[in-house]
């Protein structure tokens, strides 16, 4: 029996889910937790590893300097970053492949079946080059990407059974590294992303701030003024670990102790009250809620129109966040917390792997003609397919150079926008009136618009361009 895999390739943690016979199976690290997306690369041997041990010892590794500790590789995909070792140079694709291979190996270890193909969730505005780079990484890991799906849409699909009647849904995804907020519109089974907001303040930052605050208290008690970063790296790591443990304890108990047998050479024992902790992180939570507010406003819908506020991600389990959202009149009615917050995106991707839907353009794409009119090439709501199409244009004046301007606009029910230029490029011409210019265009599986043009008179001298920031709606199949 074959399952369907979905992968949430996260900035801080990555997860994979297999949907088989109606049941979800989780694959993360060896402890059943999300796999930390951190890779240790031995500078000498070129051996790479990832996972919980690497994450736990990352500061120690950094201090030792024998290995590269590569975090947040997701944000580096498509970049020019390289990691030279004595046996070769590593690219972002090589590093990401280590994480994906680890997930596949875990799946094979638990279910005798590695990940051959999967749907991968990505952020809303994940760049085209990053998507392409991620696809190459997956190929290196032996995984064929069936399609990409945005993380917010994947989370919505995971809970789609209870959201079908909703028109507007806000997805509040607060993980270890980032907070991503999307406002989605569900219309005729299609999911449109109306707006997105995000910030880099998430779980790791909270842990760090918490550790800094504890460090400050320790220094105050000890009447010392050593900065946190001057502490031994092991002590820094240990304190962060204890602070993270204390953070989760506060969801159950009002007070806990942070204990270390040695911190700066002396034992550390500090009792911490939840109120104090929450006062510490309250600015972060308030900022997150402010971002949520902004995203909804940006989407052009009222708070009352938001039918559901779906709160997912590891850091979204903070008790203070729940309390604030529940007590906020704007969000109280729509608030919904996921019980499996760190696995929702992968689960939604697995559902799509089983019953693939389709991407449709959420914008109209066309070319601006000499009279500034918009000549539509790709309709809004058109199912994406990679077959190239072409159109013939002609010069209206004698010129050795033709400027082509591709633009997009929204023709949706809510508003019609002015064309917005997205690609501009010039093509050499033979220079006679009514000379024919052939323009070919397509959208590839990585959802990148590809265009090229050439003068028919000059033949092969083509000019090609890409644009990877088109917006798409996702047609969710009936479930």
């Amino acid at each position: 029996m074959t399952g369907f895999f979905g992968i949430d390739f996260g900035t801080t943690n990555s997860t994979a889910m297999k949907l088989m016979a109606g049941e979800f199976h989780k694959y993360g690290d060896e402890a059943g937790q999300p796999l930390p997306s951190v890779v240790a690369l031995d500078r000498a041997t070129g051996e790479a590893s990832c996972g919980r041990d690497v994450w736990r010892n990352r500061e120690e590794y950094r201090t030792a300097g024998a290995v590269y500790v590569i975090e947040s590789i997701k944000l580096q995909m498509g970049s020019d970053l390289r990691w030279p070792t004595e046996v070769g140079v590593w690219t972002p694709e090589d590093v990401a492949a280590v994480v994906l291979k680890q997930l596949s190996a875990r799946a094979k270890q638990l279910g005798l079946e590695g990940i051959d193909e999967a749907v991968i969730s990505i952020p809303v505005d994940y760049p085209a080059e990053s998507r392409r780079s991620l696809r190459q990484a997956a190929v290196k890991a032996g995984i064929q990407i069936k399609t990409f799906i945005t993380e917010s849409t994947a989370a919505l699909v995971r809970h789609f059974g209870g959201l079908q009647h909703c028109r507007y849904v806000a997805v509040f995804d607060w993980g270890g590294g980032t907070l991503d907020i999307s406002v989605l519109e569900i219309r005729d089974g299609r999911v449109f992303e109306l707006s997105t907001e995000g910030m880099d303040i998430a779980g790791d930052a909270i842990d760090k701030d918490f550790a800094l605050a504890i460090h400050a208290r320790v220094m105050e008690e000890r009447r010392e003024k050593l900065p946190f970063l001057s502490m031994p790296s092991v002590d820094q790591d240990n304190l962060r670990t204890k602070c993270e443990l204390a953070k989760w304890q506060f969801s159950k108990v009002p007070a806990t102790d942070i204990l270390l047998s040695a911190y700066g050479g002396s034992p550390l024992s500090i009792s911490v009250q939840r109120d104090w902790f929450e006062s510490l992180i309250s600015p972060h939570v308030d900022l997150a809620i402010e971002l949520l507010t902004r995203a909804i406003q940006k989407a052009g819908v009222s708070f009352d129109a938001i039918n559901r506020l779906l709160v997912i991600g590891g850091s979204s389990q903070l008790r203070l966040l729940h309390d604030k959202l529940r007590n906020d009149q704007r969000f109280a009615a729509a608030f919904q917390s996921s019980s499996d917050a760190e696995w929702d995106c992968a689960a939604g991707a697995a559902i799509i792997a089983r019953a693939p839907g389709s991407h449709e353009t959420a914008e109209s794409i066309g070319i601006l003609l000499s009279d500034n009119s918009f000549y539509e090439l790709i309709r809004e709501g058109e199912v994406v397919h990679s077959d190239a199409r072409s159109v013939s244009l002609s010069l209206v004046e004698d010129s050795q150079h033709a400027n082509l301007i591709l633009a997009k606009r929204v023709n949706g029910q809510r508003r019609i926008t002015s064309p917005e230029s997205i690609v501009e490029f010039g093509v050499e011409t033979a220079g006679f009136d009514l000379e024919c210019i052939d323009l070919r265009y397509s959208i590839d599986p990585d959802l990148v618009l590809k265009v090229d043009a050439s003068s028919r008179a000059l033949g092969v001298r083509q000019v090609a361009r890409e644009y990877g920031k088109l917006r798409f709606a996702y047609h969710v199949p009936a479930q």
Partner: protein
Amino acid sequence: MEHMNDFKTLAESVRKKKGRMDASARKKGADLIAAILIDQEEDFKEMLVVAEDLQSEAVADGIGMAWSTMSPERRIEVRRWIPAPHTERAQRRVALLAATLAETDSATALELLDGLIPDRPPNKDLKRLIVASLFSDGRTIPFDNMAKATVRSRLTSRVFGALASLAFETTSGIEHMPRYLLSLGIVNFVAIQKLGQSSEGRDLLSKVAAEAARWPQGLREKFEGWLRNEQPELMPQFFSPTPNLAPPRLSEITDQSQPGAMKVDGGHEVAQSRVDQYLDERERALTAEIAALSQFRMSLAERQNELLRQIDAWKDRESELAKRVSELSSSRTALEDQLSRAMEQVKQLEQALESALREKKVEHEKLTQQITANAHGRVSEFKNQVALTLSRHLVDLPSKETSVSPELGRVLLLQFHQLVDVLTELGIRLPNVRSGR
């Protein structure tokens, strides 16, 4: 089967006694034969074979007893079994059977006698046999029934003629009463068949007249009285001024036609008159015979038509059966094809089943391996989770050689309690650890 077994036992017994049978044995034999012939379940053909060992009287009695009750098919079989009268034993059996059947089936009796009596005058042994079978031991043959039997009149006439010749001989030794009854039968036959004016009728009546002349006065008067009451039209044939009106035999006429013979009747006119009379009678007889033959021909034509119809019917039946056979053959071929297809399908299904079972086994093994791997993996995950949680709490565990200050001791004690709490949260209960620490 019980009768047959008894019959076989009786036959065996008779064989041992070299064919001798007393009265009770004959009675038993006759009863068993009759019972076997009547019972459709019994194998009568085997009985007829075994019956060769029994005395002809017993066999004849048995057949006679069953004759009117047995099925027509069995009668035909028995008739076929009756031997041709070429030996004395066969002649005796036929004669006794004829005598027995005369009471119940006069026609068959007449046919048997017709076969028994040869065309030429019978020899002395046959005469004695016929006399013994038909006229002795107080046997009263119903000659009157024979006279009325629906068989060819010529056959009856021949039999009656032969019996009359035998019985009316002065040396036959037959008593007057049987001969009287035979005479009545003959007269009735002539009257019924209206043969009074025919040559054969006249011949028969002349024999009776000659016989009657030899009877005692009382018997003659009885005959006359019977004749007057029963067949008055034949009275002149017996009791007229000219007692012998029987037509002259042709040979006599021929003889009389000879010049020398005409003197016998005293004149040509008389002779001519008798010739004319004879010719008239002959014409009538021939006319009647032609009519009878015509009727017989019509009957034969009808019979032929009937047989042709039957042949046509049988041909139709044959054609129908051939068609049916053809249909059944086609049906059989179709069924064989169907069976072949079904067998092929069964084979395919068996192969599919076998394949499915193999796949099931493989899938089962795979699932078992998956479940086992998953179970082991999940247990391992849980262990790792516990280890991870504990390790995060124990990231700062001092080495064993570390000297423990009161402050460190307190930290370690609190950490120890945190560990207990963590284990409890993970579902690992520590029952011997007391609360109220």
